[in-house]
C-alpha cells in the first residue's frame, strides 16, 4: 500500500500544479514540488520493498514493470524541472504517470510470474528496457511540445502562452538527450536479453515476435539519432519521427506482450 500512498501524493501534486498553469505564471508551487518529491520517495520505496520480498528486481511482471516505468518518468520530470524549470512538461507527463501508477496499484501484489522467468540477468534486462522506453517516452513528449510551440510561432498568432512551453531549443535538447539515453538503454536491454535468453531458452527463440519488434523499434530510433546528429533532420521532421517511433514502442511493449507466447506476460494456454 506504499504505492497507494505515493499515488495520493502524486495526485496532490497534480492538483496543486493546475492553478498556476491556468494563471499563466507558472512556477511549480512549493507544495506541489514537495508532494511530488514525497510521492517519488514512497514510490521508490514500494519498488524496493517488492524487490526485497522477491529477492530480485521487481519488474518481472506487469505491475512491477508499469510501476517502474511510472517511477522513471516522474523522476525524470522532477530532475528536468530542477534543471530547466519546465512546468508544462508536467502537464504532459504527470497525468499519464498517475494513470500508470494507478494501473500498477490496482494490480495488487505481484501476481503472475511466468515460469520462464528466472535469473538475475532477466531483471537487468527488463530494467534496462524500461529505462530505455522512459527515454523514448520523453523523446516523444519533447517532440510533441516542439510541434506545439513551433506551430504557434509559425502561425504568428502567439496565443499568449497558454502553457509556458519551453523554447524550441530546450525541446530539442531534451529530445536529443532522451534519444541518446533511450537508445543506449534499449541497446543494453537487447544485449542482456540475448545473453539471458541464450542461456535459458531453447529452440529458435531469436524469432520471437517481441524480440523482432524491439529490434525494429531500436532501428527506428537509431535512425532518428543519426539523422538528428548529422543534421539532415531536425525540428519538425524529427518530432514526427519521435511520435511514430513511440507508436512502435507501444506496439512492442503492449501489443506483442499479449501476443508473444514465451515472451509475454500472460500465462501460456
Amino acid at each position, binding site marked *: 500500500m506504499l504505492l497507494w500512498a505515493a499515488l495520493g501524493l502524486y495526485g496532490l501534486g497534480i492538483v496543486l500544479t493546475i492553478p498556476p498553469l491556468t*494563471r499563466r505564471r507558472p512556477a511549480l508551487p512549493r507544495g506541489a514540488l514537495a508532494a511530488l518529491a514525497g510521492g517519488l520517495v514512497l514510490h521508490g520505496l514500494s519498488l524496493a520493498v517488492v524487490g526485497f520480498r522477491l529477492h530480485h528486481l521487481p519488474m518481472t511482471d506487469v505491475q512491477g514493470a508499469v510501476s517502474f516505468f511510472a517511477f522513471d518518468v516522474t523522476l525524470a520530470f522532477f530532475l528536468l524541472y530542477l534543471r530547466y524549470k519546465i512546468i508544462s512538461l508536467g502537464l504532459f507527463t504527470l497525468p499519464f504517470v498517475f494513470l500508470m501508477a494507478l494501473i500498477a496499484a490496482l494490480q495488487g501484489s505481484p501476481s503472475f510470474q511466468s515460469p520462464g522467468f528466472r535469473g538475475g540477468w532477466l531483471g537487468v534486462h527488463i530494467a534496462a528496457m524500461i529505462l530505455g522506453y522512459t527515454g523514448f517516452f520523453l523523446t516523444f513528449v519533447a517532440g510533441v511540445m516542439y510541434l506545439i510551440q513551433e506551430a504557434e510561432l509559425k502561425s*504568428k498568432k502567439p496565443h499568449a*502562452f497558454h502553457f509556458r512551453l519551453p523554447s524550441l531549443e530546450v525541446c530539442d535538447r531534451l529530445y536529443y538527450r532522451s534519444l541518446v539515453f533511450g537508445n543506449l538503454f534499449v541497446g543494453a536491454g537487447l544485449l542482456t536479453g540475448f545473453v539471458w535468453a541464450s542461456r535459458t531458452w531453447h529452440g529458435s527463440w531469436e524469432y520471437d515476435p517481441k524480440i523482432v519488434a524491439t529490434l525494429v523499434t531500436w532501428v527506428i530510433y537509431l535512425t532518428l539519432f543519426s539523422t538528428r546528429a548529422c543534421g539532415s533532420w531536425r525540428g519538425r521532421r524529427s518530432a514526427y519521427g519521435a511520435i511514430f517511433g513511440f507508436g512502435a514502442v507501444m506496439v512492442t511493449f503492449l501489443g506483442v506482450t499479449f501476443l508473444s507466447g514465451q515472451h509475454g506476460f500472460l500465462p501460456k494456454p
Partner: protein
Amino acid sequence: MNFILVGISHHTAPVEVRERMNIHESRLPAALTDLVARRGIREGMILSTCNRVDLAAASEDGVEAEPELRRFLTELHRNDLAPYEQYLYWRRGRDVVRHLFRVACSLDSMILGEPQILGQFKQAFAAASEAGALNGALHEVARQALAVGRRVRRETALGTTAVSASYAAVELAKKIFGSLEGKTVFILGAGKMSELAARHLISSGATSILVTNRTYERACELAQAFGGTPVRFEDAFEQLGRADIVISSTGSREVLVTRERVERMLAARKQRPMFFVDIAVPRDVDPAVNELNNAFVYDIDDLEAVVASNRKQREREAAWAEEIVEEEVERTLRRLASRDLAPTIVALEQRLERIRAAEIERFRGRLGNLDPSQNEAVDALTRGILNKILHGPITEMKNGAGDPEHGALVQLVRRIFGVND
C-alpha cells in the same frame, strides 16, 4: 490616522506640466523633512518620476491637512498652485491606500505592467524612511505597497510580455533559442530600429554581432558601438549563415533573402534554426522562407500584432491584479485598524470589567451562598452579556477603518463608554 494624497500624473497632465512639478531626488530629503515638520502632518512620502508626482501624508487625528499640503507645494515650487489646480488629484482615507498599491503594481502606469515603477517606489520609500518621515501607519502602507507590487508580479503575468516591437523580437527569439547566450546576431542594414532591436538582444545575452550596410563606414560605426564585427555588403550573403538571428532593414526595393538561399544556409548549418526579423518596408526577406522547417520570419506587421495581443493579455492580467489589490487594501486597513484600536478596545474591556466586578460584589449578599459551579455560571453570564454589548461597537470601529469619519467614530465610542481620560 488620516491619509491624504495629492498628485499629478500622465492621466491628468501633459508632460510640460508634469516636468514643472517634478521633484528631483536630490531635493527629496530636505523637502520631506520640511513636510513632516509642519503642523498636523505626522508622516509623508514623495514619489516623483517622469510620469507622476505623488505626495502621500498621514495627518493627526481630526486635522484637515489639505491647506498645509497646498502651502507646502507652493513653497516647494515657489509658484502659485492656481494654474495647476486642474491637473491635481486628491485622495483620502482608503483611496490613498488603494492608489499607492495600484501605483506600485504598475496598474496606474502609462504602460500597464511596466517594470520600473516598483524600483522607483522602493527608492521613494527609502528616501522617506531615511528622512525620518515614515514612522507609523503610512510606513506600514508604503511597505505593504511594495509587497503587493511583488505579489502581483509573482502571481500574474502582468509584467512579463513585450510592449514594443523590438522587445517582441527578443521575446520571440527566446521562444526559439531559449537562452540567447552565445547566439550570433546579424544586422543587415544599419538603421534606428535594427539598432534598438540589437541592443535589446545584446542585453538579453547575445554575444556575437555582425553588421553589414551598403556603406561600409556606417557598418563599422555600428559594429564598434556594439563591440561587433563589420562585414562588407558584398560578402554579406556568405556570412549570413553564421547568424542565428538576422535583423533586416535595408532600403532595398527587392527581396534580398530568398527561400533558396535560406534553404542552402540551413543545410550548411545542419538545420540549426534561423530567426529573421524583417523590419524593412518593402520587405527584405521572402515571406516564403517562413514555410521552411527551422526558419522563422517575422515582419513589422507580425511584430506589431504580437505587441497588440500582449497588450490585450496585459489588460486581462490587470483585472486579476486589481482584485489582488482590493484584497490587499482590505487586509491592510483591517490590520492598521486593529493596531490603532487595540488600546481603545483594551480600555473598553477594562472599564466594563470593573463595572462587572463591582456589581457582582454588590449583589453577593443577595445571591447567597453559591457553590463553585454556580459562581462560574454567574461569571460566565455576566461576561457574556458584556461581550455581546461590546461586540457591536468594536465591529463598527474595525469596519470603519479608512473612512474619513473613523477617528470621530472612535472618539464617540470612547466618550459614550466613558473611557476618555
